[in-house]
């Protein structure tokens, strides 16, 4: 395992409420959340639900660069991003945004990665090693001398991830990291996130729309609606019950297609209020689970779940 800044990545948030100046209501309301080192957490919610605000708070971007009134507490690898300068947090928390061209400023891909390392005071010889390693890890080896403006949108997105990774942060926050990527690029990013968390002990928070990939990859999913956490748990528990399929649809979100299929085949859920419905029924949330679920259904051994 490589040395991470600040040891393993743990995030601890208590009663976090964030309000932007002039906004009618809070962007986040009383968020309480713990992420342990090595955990990969998917954050889902509609545009404006507070996902980006949450990720930016973890990095200290809110309130230091984007002004906001914040109450409650946050600890990230033992540091308080509400107090620490953004520069200090930058060594601990890597940030990847949905808009890679807004993060790019240098003449070459390698310089782009080196920029953050310079700001951390990393010596030259080590910088060269880290730049090469980061390029390899995201599949951009050999492109170090290219201008970031001439690589594709998908490559720019991977460059943004390489920039974050070269700093060896113990926490990585990714806001819509696959928005510009084709399926191969999406798989690469999710695979990377999985490896960085499970194998290297980082904690990773990903806000993404790709609920199929999140269900198959994340340890945990968190659903935000209008600034509040409305569900938090393993993908099967958050997505895979008839009640949650309906509840998520009610707030404009969807479950994986295989889960929606199983929910339809299983028939209506228990509906509002307590009822005799199949409370304990669990629907598949991944392809493998769906194939097994349909096989059980076909065999008639487990027709309702």
């Amino acid at each position, binding site marked *: 395992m490589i040395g991470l800044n600040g040891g393993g990545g743990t995030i601890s948030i208590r009663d976090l409420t964030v309000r932007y100046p002039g906004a009618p209501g809070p962007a986040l309301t009383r968020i309480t959340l713990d992420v342990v080192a090595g955990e990969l957490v998917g954050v889902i919610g509609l545009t404006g639900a507070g996902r980006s605000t949450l990720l930016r708070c973890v990095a200290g971007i809110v309130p230091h660069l984007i002004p906001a009134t914040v109450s409650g507490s946050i600890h990230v690898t033992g540091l308080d991003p509400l107090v620490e300068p953004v520069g200090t947090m930058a060594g601990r928390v890597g940030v990847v945004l949905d808009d890679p061209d807004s993060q790019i400023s240098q003449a070459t891909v390698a310089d782009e990665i080196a920029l953050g390392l310079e700001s951390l005071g990393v010596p030259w010889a080590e910088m060269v090693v880290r730049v090469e390693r980061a390029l390899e890890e995201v599949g951009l080896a050999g492109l170090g001398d290219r201008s970031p403006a001439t690589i594709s949108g998908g490559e720019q997105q991977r460059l943004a991830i390489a920039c974050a990774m070269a700093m060896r942060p113990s926490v990585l926050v990714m806001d819509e990291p696959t928005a510009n990527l084709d399926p191969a690029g999406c798989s690469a990013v999710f695979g990377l996130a999985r490896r960085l968390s499970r194998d290297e002990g980082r904690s990773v928070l990903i806000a993404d729309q790709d609920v199929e990939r999140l269900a198959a990859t994340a340890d945990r999913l968190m659903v935000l609606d209008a600034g509040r956490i409305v569900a938090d748990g393993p993908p099967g528990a958050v997505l895979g019950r008839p009640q949650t399929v309906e509840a998520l649809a009610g707030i404009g979100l969807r479950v994986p297609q295989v889960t929606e*299929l199983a929910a339809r085949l299983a028939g209506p859920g228990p509906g509002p209020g307590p009822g005799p419905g199949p409370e304990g029924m669990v629907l598949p949330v991944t392809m493998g689970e769906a194939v097994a679920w349909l096989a059980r259904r076909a065999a008639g051994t487990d027709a309702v779940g």
Partner: protein
Amino acid sequence: MSGVVPEMRPRDAMLSFDAVRFTYQRDAPSAIDGLSLEVAATEVVGIVGANGSGKTTLVKLANGLLRPDSGRVTVDGLDTGRAPVRTLAAHAGLAFQNPNHQLFAATVAEELAFGPRNLGVPVDEVESRVGEVAAQLGLDGVLELHPYRLGLATRKLVAIGSVLTMRTPLVILDEPTTGQDHATVRTLAGLVAALRGAGRTVVIVGHDTSFLAPLVDRLVILAAGRVTADGPPRLVLADDAAITEAGLEVPQITDLSRRLDLVGRPGAWRALSVGELADAIVDSEAVESEARP
């Protein structure tokens, strides 16, 4: 046979690429490499390909922003190599993948009004179009805001809206669903259905096959600047080799249908939506239970 060969294609074709080649820099590989493709009037066509397959170059050729090095592109019968971009703008509307490349007005309302006003549409008519499109895309609440105060997802909707207000017969959407949440994706699906109902020709470019499969008449796969598959989505999504070679993925539900052996369905059958597969499974179970003694 001599004499009258009726003009078979140009009349019906809203968009036509004939052996088109385009290269950005000398010595670089062609971004579009001898591509031929026709989209008939009122058709809804999805063009899918990996990053770098030539999708964005293709749409820029389709509205005259780029002109072919060789071959011919026509839009609504106009040769893009000859017709001025201004003229083409009344025939083909393109919503860019990155709205930052498109938006410039001080308010959303002005952004939506700019196109039709520029085409000489009367003021009253411009206003009514702005109102209609804002309602369709859920932009009523932000009409007086500066586009840059909006999030990327909403800015993309504004960019799409500013194309819709021009009421061009051909509407081209470049990656409309990237970064959009499910509620907005549903709005976009409704929009495409409405455009279809209004008899407009729609070309949607992207890699989101789960959005496109149930919506389009035809799916075209682009790889390295060439068409590698073209046909009804059910057939194209069953072409595993073409999908894999192009670096694409089929919708999860299509993939699941591929793994099932359903009574009464040919082995190559592919579901395009959750509803389709649910119905097919129920049908298959009914057939099986009847067959049981």
